């Protein structure tokens, strides 16, 4: 199951087309001036996060709790012929064992068009790491001992762990077949590329590839499951508690109302935690069998094989342009594999070529292949960085062929229209032009690009070197080549939209409580939403509490993902706060015997118009004191503007490349982003910094490696082999330029999503800087020292 399937990135736009019913209360006008929103405020839960008091799912310890562990298939493709757990069941501390013969093992899993593709514990294992058996024991050590005592016999089957192998005519089908193509290619076409290329003065064509990436949230995937008779409570590390509630209810045949999922703190997701996984169903089955709470957290190795990934994609880009840089045609073909059960190998890859630049003639073909590897899961801007990696490098080559500045080439093809959408609506706003120009200005792009400086380090980069973790003297410098590069990008989502229901409560002492279903992935959602309440009700942040991400106490919303959380939740929070405000002012007006329309809230008091007007402290409103609470409910209404809502960005990087060792270091970085209103400048910058780090990982270090020759296994099953960027691998002080175009129509908060768009151009910007440094593009990610040296050898 791909959680993105059930989750609409463009809810706002679609809802607009559906012409939603007019809400009872008209939408509030956008904020003109703000008192709280936009400020760089520390997050409201920072104390919990730095003190160690935040309780993550993995920190939940219940009386009598057992610890579970899962036995997984070690083969890329195999059939389980025998499972013998006799010895394991007799081991000290072991309380329950699940095998493919146990009740519940046949729960359907991995949905396909014609029904489930597999089962919870399926004898047919189509990738290394599929679940075969599970144990619950008194300690995790005993659980792992017991796993080792389970005898499993496998019939090892032929496997395919590369696209080429999967498409070989003799390949064994991963699913039912025939062959391993996951449906027909997705073809999108506008205009006529043949005439477009005929009109071009220059045509470039190149093939690029990105490696498969693993999400690697630092909190592992897992949960604690506890039954109270017919009711199940699960503490899970998730981006959304409501999808998990539905998944568990469906899997276990329970009413949704009997499943409670709790997850207020979660240790990173990046798409991998949009929904729960098999682990939670297994934990629930073990808990039911033993009558005790069960904790099941996956091992790091198992998350790498089994939870999900960003599929590696191979893309061929052909672009034509006239001499002034006007694009005449783009042809884009890509192929990727979503692994064993997902047809989503190239989902989202075609969006950059289809929508980012003005071009009348575009054709994209996206192909998907099944293979015997872990299924993909959405990973921060699914498909988009892969597409940008190819398109933005090709544009760089085009700029060079046209003898044109790369920024100028992109400005030449700027558009205010979403060409990929039906009817080609305008964007509500696009800050791409400002991202390009302001980003370039902040970076000092023109100076950095000046001929004669290339190959040497710029003054600012030398400064960064001195401050950075760089060693080596003149000898090293002699081998260093410096380069600058840039890239742009946009995110297909970022509009937000229904559903979300929010409750804001004003309490008798004038403090407030925000009740929100959404998870805070660390993006600062809680803080930003509390700021919206503070803005509308004049309650200081320190007098606002937030409860969230608990299906038992908060209201339905989608998972936090797709960079839709702020544009989804903020309008609903604002509506809830305004509902409270309306009631408060009505009650105050009755008490003061004035028209509520003349009243406003200022610093904890309700004040009338004009000097000497009535003034009443919020705590003096008699009805509030009597009732103890005023409750406001806010619903995320559909947007009705009919426009496309998208965030944009342009990134600039300076790198040094050691031509002897092939080592690449990112010295300087400027990321200009336009995501509508900046809700909190501090957490905004942090999102961008984090995206740049992940982009550096895509560009330079991250690659899941499969043994294509011998056994089909994952060769990068730990964090030594699978290299997530460390503090030594990132630019020391990336700068964030926040472009705010004052979007007054996208939604009632004026904000679009940020987390994903900030990642999209980053790897390509680094790749272009490397090409600038060494004079040749490295077309395959990651840009390892070996690839740099090979490229240099080829060039000379």
């Amino acid at each position, binding site marked *: 199951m791909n959680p993105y399937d059930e989750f609409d990135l463009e809810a706002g736009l679609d809802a607009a087309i559906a012409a939603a019913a007019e809400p009872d209360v008209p939408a509030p006008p956008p904020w003109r001036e703000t008192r709280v929103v936009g400020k760089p405020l*520390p*997050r409201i*839960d*920072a*104390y*919990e*996060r*730095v*003190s*160690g008091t*935040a*309780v*993550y799912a*993995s*920190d939940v*310890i219940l009386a009598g709790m057992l610890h579970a562990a899962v036995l997984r298939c070690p083969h890329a493709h195999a059939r389980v012929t025998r499972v013998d757990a006799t010895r394991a069941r007799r081991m000290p501390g072991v309380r329950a064992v699940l095998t493919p013969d146990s009740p519940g093992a046949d729960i359907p899993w991995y949905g396909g068009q014609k029904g489930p593709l597999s089962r919870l514990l399926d004898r047919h294992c189509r990738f290394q790491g599929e679940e075969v058996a599970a144990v619950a024991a008194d*300690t*995790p*050590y005993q659980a792992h001992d017991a796993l080792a005592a389970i005898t499993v016999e496998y019939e090892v089957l032929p496997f395919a762990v590369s696209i080429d192998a999967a498409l070989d005519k003799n390949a064994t089908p991963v699913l039912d077949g025939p062959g391993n193509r996951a449906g027909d290619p997705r073809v999108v076409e506008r205009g006529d590329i043949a005439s477009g290329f005929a009109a071009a003065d220059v045509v470039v064509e190149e093939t690029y590839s990105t490696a498969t990436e693993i*999400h*690697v*949230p*630092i*909190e*592992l995937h897992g949960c604690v499951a506890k039954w109270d008779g017919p009711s199940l409570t699960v503490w899970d590390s998730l981006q959304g508690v409501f999808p998990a509630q539905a998944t568990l209810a469906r899997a276990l045949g329970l009413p949704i109302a009997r499943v409670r999922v709790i997850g207020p*703190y*979660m*240790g*990173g997701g*990046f798409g991998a935690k949009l929904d729960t996984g098999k682990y939670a169903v297994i934990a629930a089955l073990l808990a039911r069998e033993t009558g005790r709470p069960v904790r099941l957290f996956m091992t*790091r190795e198992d998350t790498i094989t089994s939870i999900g990934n960003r599929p590696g994609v191979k893309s061929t880009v052909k672009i034509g342009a006239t001499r002034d840089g006007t694009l005449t045609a783009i042809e884009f073909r890509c192929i990727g594999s979503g692994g064993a059960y997902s047809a989503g190998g190239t989902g989202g890859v075609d969006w950059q070529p289809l929508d980012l630049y003005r071009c009348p003639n575009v054709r994209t073909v996206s192909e998907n292949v099944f293979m015997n590897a872990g299924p993909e899961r959405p990973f921060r801007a699914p498909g988009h960085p892969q597409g940008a990696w190819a398109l933005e490098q090709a544009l760089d080559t085009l700029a060079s062929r046209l003898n044109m500045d790369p920024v100028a080439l992109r400005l030449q093809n700027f558009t205010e229209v979403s060409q990929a959408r039906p009817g080609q609506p305008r964007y509500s706003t696009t800050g791409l032009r400002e991202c390009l120009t302001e980003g370039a200005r902040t970076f000092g792009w023109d100076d950095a690009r000046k001929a004669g400086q290339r190959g040497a380090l710029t003054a600012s980069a030398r400064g960064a070197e001195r*401050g*950075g*973790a*760089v060693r080596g003297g003149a000898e090293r410098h002699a081998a260093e080549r410096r380069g600058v590069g840039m890239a742009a990008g946009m995110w297909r989502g970022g509009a937000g939209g229904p559903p979300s229901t929010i409750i804001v409560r004003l309490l008798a002492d004038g403090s407030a409580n925000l009740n929100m279903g959404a998870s805070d*992935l*660390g*993006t*600062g959602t809680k803080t930003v939403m509390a700021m919206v309440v503070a803005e509308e009700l004049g309650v200081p942040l320190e007098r606002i509490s937030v409860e969230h991400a608990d299906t038992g106490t908060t209201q339905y919303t989608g998972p936090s993902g797709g960079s839709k959380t702020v544009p989804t939740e903020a309008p609903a929070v604002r509506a809830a706060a305004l509902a409270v405000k309306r009631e408060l002012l009505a009650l105050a007006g009755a008490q003061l015997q004035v028209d509520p329309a003349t009243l406003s809230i200022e610093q904890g008091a309700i004040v009338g118009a004009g000097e000497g007007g009535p003034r009443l402290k919020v705590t003096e409103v008699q009805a509030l004191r009597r009732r103890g609470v005023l409750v406001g409910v806010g619903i995320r209404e559909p947007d009705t503007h009919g426009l496309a809502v998208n965030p944009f960005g342009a990134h600039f990087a300076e790198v040094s490349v050691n031509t002897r060792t092939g080592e690449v270091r990112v010295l300087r970085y400027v990321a200009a982003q336009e995501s509508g209103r900046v809700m909190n400048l501090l957490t905004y*910058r*942090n*999102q961008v*910094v*984090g*995206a740049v*780090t*992940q982009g550096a990982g895509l560009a330079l270090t991250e690659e899941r490696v499969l043994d294509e020759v011998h056994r089909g296994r994952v060769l990068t099953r*730990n*964090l*030594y082999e699978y290299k*997530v*960027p*460390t*503090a*030594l691998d*990132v*630019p*020391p*002080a*990336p700068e964030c330029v926040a472009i705010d175009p004052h979007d007054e129509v996208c939604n009632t908060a004026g904000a679009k999503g940020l987390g994903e768009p900030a990642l999209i151009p980053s790897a390509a910007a680094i790749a272009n800087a490397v090409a600038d440094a060494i004079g040749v593009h490295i077309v395959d990610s990651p840009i390892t020292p070996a690839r740099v040296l090979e490229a240099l050898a080829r060039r000379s």
Partner: protein
Amino acid sequence: MASSHDSDHKCACAGGLSRRGFLTSVGTGAIGAVATAHMASAATADAPVETIDAGAHVTVALLVNGTTHRLAVEPRWSLLFVLRERLGLTGAKAGCERGECGACTVLVDGETRYACMTLAVEAEGHEITTIEGLMHGEELGPVQRAFVEHDAMQCGYCTPGQVMAVEGLLRTTPSPTLDQIREGVSGNLCRCGTYAHIFQAAERAAELKRG
């Protein structure tokens, strides 16, 4: 995290520590590996070896955040497991259980150490400090305050480990350069990617600690 900058230091742990303990307590990555080789060769020379039956429980006295806890442990239990599951100190996090991510970083005799790669029995006789031990009652310590100020976190899961890495760094290097800060936290992965903010927080924490 322990890496090249403290390779010149003697390990603060007394005899009885296995070679494995040394190998696994040192930081991650290539830089850590250099230090590892150096320290391991020094460690094996005169370390007495004590063998404990794997199935048996042994009693240890662990000095954690100034309080001595006497408890029965299996010899194979990690310090991280005992801190979290037996003492309820869940500030140190599990992220890999094999010394790769740094989420479990604690101080042992003032030096950063991966609790997941330290056996509880090894930790006896040493002063263990966890994130909870940096608090003064409900008050945050200076490193924690600096992390709040500079928003040096996102999801927060690696944060206790990052705080301990900075704390350990500042105890040996009160005025670190950016270079030293980057190396000091290079054994602590932050997948949200907030390193640049962590560097700022570390600089600010050094100021706060200097007063």
